[in-house]
C-alpha cells in the first residue's frame, strides 16, 4: 500500500527527501510517510470544507430526516434532516482546531514549566514537579469535563479546558529531556566557554530535546481530539459548532434504525486518530537514536 | 594437544547500507590449557571472532564460511544445531564479558544467576546448585559469599560483579574460557586482582583461555600466545616472549609503542598516523598500508598472507618476504 501512495503522491518531493535523507529503518519511515499523507489529506478536507460540501453545516431539514445514504446525501441525514456528510467535514475542522489550539496552550504552559524545572532544579523543580505529577495523575478527561460543565459549554471553554489538562505530560517530557541533556558533556563544554544560560537553553538544549518532544506533541494532539469527541459524546459540546462527538451522541438514540448516523462520523474520527498515531509513533521510532542504530 | 581449531572463518555483518567484513578469513588454533590473547582495537573484529565460537553473534551477523572445530571429537561448531550447541555453551565453553553491570540480569539475585547454569548443565537440584554457587564465589575470594549470593547486581561493586560473571563462566568446569575485555570496566587496582584470580583459576582448572583485549599490558601478564588483529585480519601471531621482544608487523610495533608506559621516558611515544579503516570499504592490498611507515608499492595491490617464518611465528607483511 505504501508503494502506491509513494508513487502517486505529490509529496515525494524534495521536502520529504530532505526530511528522510539519512538512512532510516524502512518501517518507521513508511509509517511516518503514510501518517503524513493521511494527516495532510484530512487537513486539506478541513481547510476546503466549504468547497467540498453542498449544504450549510448544522442547518436542519436540508433533506428528509433519517434519509439513508444516497447520491445527494452521501452519508445520509440525521434526525433533524441535517446532512451528515457536510457535518462530518465541518466536524473534522472542529476536531483539528481543538486539537491544535488546545495543544498550543498545553505546549506553552508545559514548556515553560518543563524548562524552569529541568534547567534550574532545586526547590523550584520540586514544587513544579509535584504540581505536574498531581495534575498528571488526575483523569484528564473528567477534569476537562467538569471545567466545561462549570464554566459553560462553549467552544472557547472546551479548547481552554483541554489545554489545561494536557500540559503536565508535555512539562514532564521536556523536563526529563532537559535533565538528561544538561548532564551531557557538551553542555558543560558550553558553560566552559562562557555561554549564558539563555543561550544554553535555547541553542544547545532545546534543539536536542526536539526529536523526543515533537512526536509526543503530535500524540498529544490526538489525545486532545479524542477528549473533545468524548466530551461531545457525553453531550458536553457547543451546540453551535459541528462536532463529531456530538453527532455520535445523537446517533446513540437511533442506533437501532439509523446506523449511518454513527458509522460515518466515527469512521472519520478513527481515520484522523489513525493518521496521527501513525505519524507520531513512526516519528518516535524514527527520531529515537537508540532504535535507529539497529 | 589441540582444543579448538578455527579455520578460514569469515563473518559478515549486514547493516542497512552495506556488508561489514568483521572477520575475514581467520585461522587460529588453541591448545588445551593454553592462554591465547586476541588483541586489537575497536573494529578489528576481535569480539566478533570470540563471539562466533559459541555462536553468540547478534542477529545481523552471519558466519559465511570456515569452520570452528572443537577437539577431540572435531565437532564443527558452525554447523551444530542450536540444541547441540546449547550443551556446549556454558558447559564446555564459558564466557566472561566486558561490563559486568549490563551483562548480569538486573532483576535476578546473583546466586540464582550462577545456579541457573549449574542446574541446566549438571542436572542437580536448585538447592544443590545454590550451594555450589556459594562455593564458587568463595573460591573467587568473595568475602561473605553467602550474603553476596542473595544480592542483586546493582548492590555489588564492579569487581564483585565481575567475580560473579567469572563464577557463571566456570561453574561447569569448561575446557575453554572466552573472556571479552574482562577488566576494561574496572579500576586499575581491582583489575590487577581480578586478573590474578583469573590466571590462577585457569591454571588450577587446566582451562584454555581466549582473552580478547585492546591492552597489551594485560596480555603480557596473563597469556602464552598472542594474535594481533587489524581490520578483520590477523596480522601477527606469536608467543608472547618473542612478540614483545621482537615485534615484526609494523602495526604491532606501533601498538606496542602507541601508549606511554611508566617504564619509558617521554620521548618514546611512537605515533601511528591515520585512524582505523571503515570496514564496509577496507583499503585494498594490505589493510594497514595507508598508516604504515614502511609501505611500498606491492602493499597497495596485494594482500599479504599470514606466513610462518619461524617456529610459532606468523606475520602478514610483505616486509617479511
Amino acid at each position, binding site marked *: 500500500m505504501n508503494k502506491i501512495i509513494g508513487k502517486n503522491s505529490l509529496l515525494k518531493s524534495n521536502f520529504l527527501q530532505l526530511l528522510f535523507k539519512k538512512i532510516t529503518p524502512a518501517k518507521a519511515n513508511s509509517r511516518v510517510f503514510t501518517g503524513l499523507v493521511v494527516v495532510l489529506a484530512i487537513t486539506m478536507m478541513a481547510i476546503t470544507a466549504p468547497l467540498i460540501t453542498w449544504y450549510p453545516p448544522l442547518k436542519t431539514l436540508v433533506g428528509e430526516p433519517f434519509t439513508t445514504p444516497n447520491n445527494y446525501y452521501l452519508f445520509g441525514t440525521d434526525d433533524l434532516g441535517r446532512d451528515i456528510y457536510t457535518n462530518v467535514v465541518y466536524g473534522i475542522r472542529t476536531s483539528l482546531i481543538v486539537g491544535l489550539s488546545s495543544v498550543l496552550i498545553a505546549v506553552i504552559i508545559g514548556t515553560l514549566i518543563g524548562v524552569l524545572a529541568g534547567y534550574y532544579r532545586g526547590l523550584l523543580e520540586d514544587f513544579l514537579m509535584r504540581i505536574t505529577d498531581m495534575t498528571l495523575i488526575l483523569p484528564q478527561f473528567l477534569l476537562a469535563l467538569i471545567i466545561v460543565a462549570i464554566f459553560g459549554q462553549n467552544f472557547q471553554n472546551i479548547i481552554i479546558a483541554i489545554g489545561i489538562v494536557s500540559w503536565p505530560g508535555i512539562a514532564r517530557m521536556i523536563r526529563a529531556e532537559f535533565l538528561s541533556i544538561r548532564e*551531557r*558533556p*557538551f553542555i*558543560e*563544554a*558550553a558553560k*566552559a*566557554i*562562557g*555561554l*549564558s544560560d539563555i543561550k544554553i537553553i535555547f541553542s*544547545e538544549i532545546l*534543539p*536536542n530535546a526536539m526529536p523526543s518532544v515533537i512526536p509526543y506533541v503530535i500524540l498529544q494532539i490526538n489525545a486532545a481530539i479524542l477528549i473533545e469527541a468524548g466530551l461531545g459524546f457525553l453531550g458536553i459540546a457547543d451546540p453551535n459548532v459541528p462536532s463529531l462527538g456530538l453527532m455520535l451522541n445523537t446517533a446513540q438514540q437511533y442506533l437501532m434504525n439509523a446506523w449511518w448516523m454513527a458509522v460515518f462520523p466515527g469512521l472519520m474520527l478513527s481515520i484522523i486518530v489513525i493518521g496521527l498515531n501513525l505519524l507520531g509513533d513512526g516519528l518516535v521510532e524514527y527520531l529515537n537514536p537508540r532504535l535507529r542504530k539497529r | 594437544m589441540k582444543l579448538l581449531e578455527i579455520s578460514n572463518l569469515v563473518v559478515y555483518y549486514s547493516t542497512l547500507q552495506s556488508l561489514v567484513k568483521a572477520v575475514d578469513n581467520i585461522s587460529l588454533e588453541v591448545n588445551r590449557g593454553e592462554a591465547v590473547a586476541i588483541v586489537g*582495537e*575497536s573494529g578489528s573484529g576481535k569480539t566478533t571472532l570470540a563471539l562466533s565460537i559459541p555462536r553468540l553473534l547478534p542477529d545481523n551477523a552471519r558466519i559465511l564460511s570456515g569452520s570452528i572445530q572443537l577437539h577431540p571429537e572435531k565437532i564443527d561448531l558452525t554447523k551444530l544445531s542450536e540444541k547441540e550447541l546449547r550443551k556446549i555453551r556454558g558447559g564446555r565453553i564459558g564466557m566472561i564479558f566486558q561490563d559486568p553491570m549490563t551483562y548480569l540480569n538486573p532483576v535476578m539475585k546473583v546466586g540464582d544467576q550462577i545456579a541457573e547454569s549449574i542446574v541446566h548443565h549438571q542436572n542437580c537440584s536448585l538447592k544443590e546448585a545454590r550451594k555450589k554457587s556459594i562455593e564458587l564465589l568463595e573460591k573467587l575470594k568473595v*568475602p561473605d559469599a553467602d550474603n553476596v549470593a542473595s544480592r542483586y547486581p546493582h548492590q555489588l*561493586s*564492579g*569487581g*564483585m560483579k565481575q567475580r560473579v560473571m567469572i563464577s557463571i563462566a566456570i561453574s561447569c568446569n569448561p575446557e575453554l574460557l572466552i573472556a571479552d575485555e574482562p577488566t576494561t570496566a574496572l*579500576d*586499575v*587496582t581491582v*583489575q*590487577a*586482582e581480578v*586478573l*590474578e584470580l583469573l590466571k590462577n583459576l585457569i591454571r588450577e582448572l587446566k582451562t584454555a583461555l581466549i582473552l580478547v583485549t*585492546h*591492552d*597489551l*599490558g*594485560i*596480555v*603480557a*601478564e596473563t597469556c602464552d600466545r598472542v594474535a594481533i588483529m587489524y581490520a578483520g585480519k590477523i596480522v601477527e601471531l606469536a608467543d*608472547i*616472549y618473542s612478540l*614483545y621482544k621482537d615485534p615484526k608487523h609494523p*602495526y604491532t610495533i*606501533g*601498538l*606496542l*609503542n*602507541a*601508549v*606511554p*608506559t*611508566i*617504564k619509558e621516558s*617521554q620521548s618514546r*611515544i*611512537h*605515533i*601511528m*598516523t591515520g*585512524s*582505523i579503516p571503515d570496514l564496509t570499504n577496507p583499503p585494498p592490498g594490505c589493510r594497514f598500508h595507508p*598508516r604504515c611507515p614502511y609501505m611500498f608499492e606491492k602493499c597497495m595491490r596485494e594482500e599479504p598472507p599470514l606466513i610462518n617464518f619461524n617456529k610459532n611465528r606468523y606475520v602478514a607483511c610483505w616486509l617479511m618476504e
Partner: protein
Amino acid sequence: MESHFSLKVINLKKYFPVSRGFFAGPQKYVKAVDNISFVVEKGGTLGIVGESGSGKTTLARLVLRLIEPTSGSVYFDNKNIFELNKHELRRLRPQMQMIFQDPMASLNPRKKVKQILAQVLKLHTSLSSEEIHERILSLLEKVGLSPPELFLERYPHELSGGQRQRVCISRAIALNPRLLIADEPVSALDVSVRGQIIKLLLDIYNESRGDMTYIVISHDIALIKSMCKNTLVMYLGRMVELGETDRIIESPLHPYTKVLISAIPIPDPESARERKRIPITGEPPSLIDPPPGCHFHPRCPYVMDKCRTETPSYFQVDDRLVSCFLYE
C-alpha cells in the same frame, strides 16, 4: 605583587548532599573533593591521578568553577574565581579551558564543526565573520585537521574519534587560554590514535613557551608521566601524595600510590612476571560511607591502629607531600 603562581587552590571542598528517604537519619554527604590544596606555577604542568570515584573530575570542574564549591578558594592570577560575579567570570572563561573525556559527547550533535568553533569566537572576540572564518581554518590546521575546508561542514558524527577530539582541542585553544585542563583526554580513543592526541597536546604546550598551564586528569599514571612534571594522587576525594611525577613512579611513598603503581600492567612479559605485586584486597569503598580515619586503611597492607581513627595530615618527605602516618 606579581606572583609566579598561575593557579593556587586552597582547602577546596565539594560535598554533594545525598538524597535519602523520609525515614533516613541525618543528611549525609558525598565528599567528592575533601580539603585539597595545591599550586601550579605559571607554565607548569600538573597531573591528577586517581581511580573512578576519587573526585578528580569534580576537582577539575571546581577549578574552572563549572560547579560551586562547598568551601575553599581557587586563585587564578591572584583572583579568587569564586568571588567573581557572573559577568567577570564570563570574561575570564577564555583564559581557562577544558578538554573532556568523550569527544563525541562534548560536541553538540546538531552543530557543524564550523558552528562549534564560530560560537566560541563570536562570544569572546569582535572579529568580523571573514576573520572568524580565517581563524577557524588556521585553528583546524593547527590541530592537524587538514585540509581544514574538508571539516568545516561536518557534524560530529561524521568524524572519527581522533578527529572529534581534535575539534574539541581546537575549541579549547581557540582563545589562547592560559590554563588548559584535559580530563582523560585519550581514554575514549582507540589505542593507535592516542599517541597522536598526546603529541598534539604536548606540541600545543611547547608552542606556548611557558604561557600555558596544563592540568591533566587521568586514571593512567603513565599518560601523566608523559605529559606532566608534577603529580597529585587522589583517593576517595582526598589528596594522598603530591610531588614530582618521576619520583612518585620511581619510589612511591603512600601505600595507595605504591599499590596503584604496582597494579599497572607492563607490556613486557619478562619484567611483568618478575615484578612483585603488592597484595591488596577489597575495592574502593562507597563514597557515601567512607571508612573513618585514613580512607585507605581497610585496603592498606601497612595499616596501624591509628589509621583507623585519625585522619593523617600532610607530611613533607623531601620535596613531596604525603598523607600517611608512616611518614609522621
